[in-house]
């Protein structure tokens, strides 16, 4: 098997995912094309050598529809021989895209591929692609469908995470993210978004609230209590009859931010490294996706991490740094507890609670974040994982070379 080498990681800043957000004026295909152009110029690529561009996107409809990966290839004016494919594994789509690109290289079917993702949540809102999972009565009944926020609160209830626990976690995420920006820790991967006249549109992650405190979070109403009363709490309890009542602890301040963004990871084999004189930064050690119980939905990261660790013949203690997507604070708390991992190793530069979670792109973004940090600390191994809708998890292990 060939080694899948990581040459470069690139991402846009994350813009607030609403009409007033800075990236709202930028079409998602432009965000994706900017990432590709940047990968091309930073690595002096002749794009004819790129075999495939794999992009995650969770709502591939409207302006994100019709295979946005190939559309972005065309818009970036890459060579016409570069194919593009859009993938959807919900919140892990960006990491899944990296894993697919890596698999192409590992299997020898590609020499150079890009994995990444894009999501403009301000222009193509959450939930726009519908789906049988929640709307088809047969499927929704049989799978005990509840929206993800209810699952997060169910998880917190089942594993006894109090409002205080999840809020404390959120405060630390904000602190870490703000420290990271102060110390310019994202500079290796981040590319400013500029317009056609080279005028800057957004250069920093704008979702952050560095002044967040326990007091400020304490003032926020739980986001999913009302939704729970529509019947979703009762459906969750039908599935988890040992629970008396769902405790609603999550709110906008301890859940991932809705943002716009795009990211890409350039992956290739040794020949390509030699041809372009690229220094491999890391290799993909292993990756795995799993399915888990869909109503609680968000327990998959631990299972997928364990599966990936097993494939790499590693233990959790062999991992130097973790990036675990902060979909909801309780998900990270559960992940750390299940794998017995200390918070000092997890999301050291903050996470999606502070920085935002552009659904299809996040997996590729946080892979870049952990690799940059491994290099800075001169550490070796990183594990990236995300919880995934409908009860899944995806994990990837990288090792610096």
């Amino acid at each position, binding site marked *: 098997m060939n080694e899948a080498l990581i040459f470069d990681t690139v991402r846009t800043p994350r813009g607030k995912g609403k009409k007033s957000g800075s990236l709202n004026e930028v079409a998602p295909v432009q965000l994706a094309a900017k990432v590709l152009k940047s990968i091309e110029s930073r690595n002096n690529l002749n794009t004819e050598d790129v075999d495939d561009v794999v992009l995650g996107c969770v709502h591939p409809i409207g302006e994100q529809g019709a295979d946005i990966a190939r559309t972005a290839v065309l818009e970036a004016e890459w060579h016409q021989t570069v194919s593009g494919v859009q993938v959807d594994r919900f919140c892990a789509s960006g990491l899944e895209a990296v894993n697919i690109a890596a698999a192409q290289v590992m299997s020898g079917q590609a020499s150079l591929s890009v994995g990444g993702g894009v999501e403009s949540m301000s222009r193509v809102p959450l939930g726009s692609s519908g789906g049988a999972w929640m709307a088809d009565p047969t499927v929704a009944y049989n799978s005990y469908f509840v929206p993800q926020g209810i699952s997060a609160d169910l998880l917190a209830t089942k594993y006894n995470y109090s409002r205080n626990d999840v809020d404390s976690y959120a405060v630390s995420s904000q602190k870490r993210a703000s420290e990271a920006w102060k110390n310019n820790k994202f500079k290796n991967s981040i590319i400013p978004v500029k317009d056609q006249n080279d005028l800057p549109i957004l250069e920093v992650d704008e979702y952050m609230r560095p002044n967040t405190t326990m007091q400020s979070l304490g003032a926020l109403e739980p986001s999913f209590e009302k939704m729970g009363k529509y*019947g979703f709490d009762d459906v969750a309890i039908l599935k988890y009859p040992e629970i008396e009542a769902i405790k609603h602890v999550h709110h906008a301040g301890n859940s991932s931010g809705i943002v716009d963004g795009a990211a890409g990871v350039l992956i290739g084999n040794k020949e390509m490294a030699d041809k372009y004189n690229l220094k491999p930064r890391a290799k993909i050690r292993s990756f795995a996706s799993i399915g888990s119980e869909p109503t609680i939905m968000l327990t998959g990261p631990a299972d997928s991490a364990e599966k990936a660790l097993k494939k790499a013949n590693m233990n959790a203690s062999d991992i130097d740094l973790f990036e675990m997507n902060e979909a909801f604070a309780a998900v990270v708390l559960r992940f750390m507890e299940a794998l017995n991992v200390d918070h000092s190793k997890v999301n050291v530069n903050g996470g999606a609670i502070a920085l935002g979670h552009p659904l299809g792109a996040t997996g590729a973004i946080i892979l870049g974040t952990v690799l940059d940090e491994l290099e800075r600390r001169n550490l070796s191994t990183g594990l990236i994982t995300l919880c995934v809708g409908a009860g899944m998890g995806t994990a990837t292990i990288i090792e610096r070379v």
Partner: protein
Amino acid sequence: MNLKNIKLFFDEDNIANLSLQSKNTLINEVFINDFIETIDFIYNNKNIKGIIISSDQNHYNYDYDLDFLLSLKNSKSIFDTITKLSKSLRKLETIGIPIVSIIKGEIKLGGLEIILHSHYKIASKDSNTNFYFKNMKYSFTPFIGGTQRLPRLIGINESINLFLSDKILSAEEALEINLIDEIVDESQLIDKAKKHIIQNPVSLQNWDDNKFKNTKLNPFSSENLGYFISKIASLHANTVNHYPAVKILMSSIYEGLNTDINSGLKIEARHFTWLIQNIETRSMIETAILFNKKEKIREDIISEFKKSFEENYAAEGVRLLINGVSAALIENAGKRLDFKAGPLEIADSLEIQCVINQLDSTDAAVASLIRSMQKINRNGLSKNKGFYDYNEGIKCNIWPSLTELIPESKIQPSVEEVETRLLYSSINNIFFNYTKYSAIQNAEVCDYMLIKEIGFPFWTGGPFNWVRKYGIEYFCKKSNEYSKSFGSRFVINQDIIKILKST
């Protein structure tokens, strides 16, 4: 033609007047065959300018013939029978000439399904003109196109709410939601119908008109999706995995409204074919037949049964607690069975002393728990403290310190196991009382009383019906096991076995 249910004549304007005869108001095989014959006759008469559908006494109280529905046995015969009628009515609906319904009196669901085929619906301005809906949670879904036409006419959300209600709509209310087109004085009904036909020589339904667009008809439209998704959840929670008609109704509408009416009708028929063979549906239809007979049972018997039934249910819950089962699991098991509340909540509402009435010599631990609670004034709802905490009579949560009195076992049983024990205990309590109070004539009346008067879960069809449907031998075997583990209250009287085996 020799029709029993329909009168057909042609007037001077070549308008076919199709009058349903109210003597036989049930939709069954005879009715279906009459209808098909009539429609074929009209269809082959090319000179007809229009059709007026009425009822001889201006009533559309056509209801479904429950005995006929139960007599339909295998999938093919059910599907064929209902699609035969549905196709025939579809033929009428697409004939091209106008079809007008004139409506007066009591309109039940079966009548409504027929009316929905007409292109124009005129109701009499008469306080007696009312549309009667009956919550189909306890029965079955429409099968002559009702699940496809009503949403297409008045909207997805609006039709779900009506189908799952016991609403009575006046003509004015029906007009407001677009269910009918016009209200006129009774004396003008025929004239108005004729006028409509003459003025609209070509007629088709909105759902057959390619130019007609309505976002209310798309389950995925932004105005429908959120409502639809939360409606599924609230119905799923409300039906606790029983009452299959509700899920089938939602599925028929969702799947059917994502396509055209022709495919929608097939979808509806396939779902109905499954539903009518479902064991719970059949049990509930059998109960409905008993309801129609309106059995009279003595009040004192009802209250004796009710008292014993509730006390036993509460006591079984406390016994489970003594066995180390978590209070939440016990309560949720009771709710999943569709008892009106969990057993501990019932104990609180009756005062926890009630549990003592049902104990035997093996229940010392149960008695001791009840006394400990009484000592600290946790007597139940009246004290705002019992197994639950209450705030001025409103339930808050299970008493958090209950686990200090009775620790929970590390390993908990499955919720299905807890449900089975509660159900078996309840059924055996009823069987015991049935032999004790000989005042009830037969097992069917007992089933009827339990559901109608005592709150036994409707989906079971009653304790006798349930045991017969799910297997007498299995019930005896399981009860025998329970009696060895948990006490003599699970021992089945031999007379009961005889009754169960006689049909």
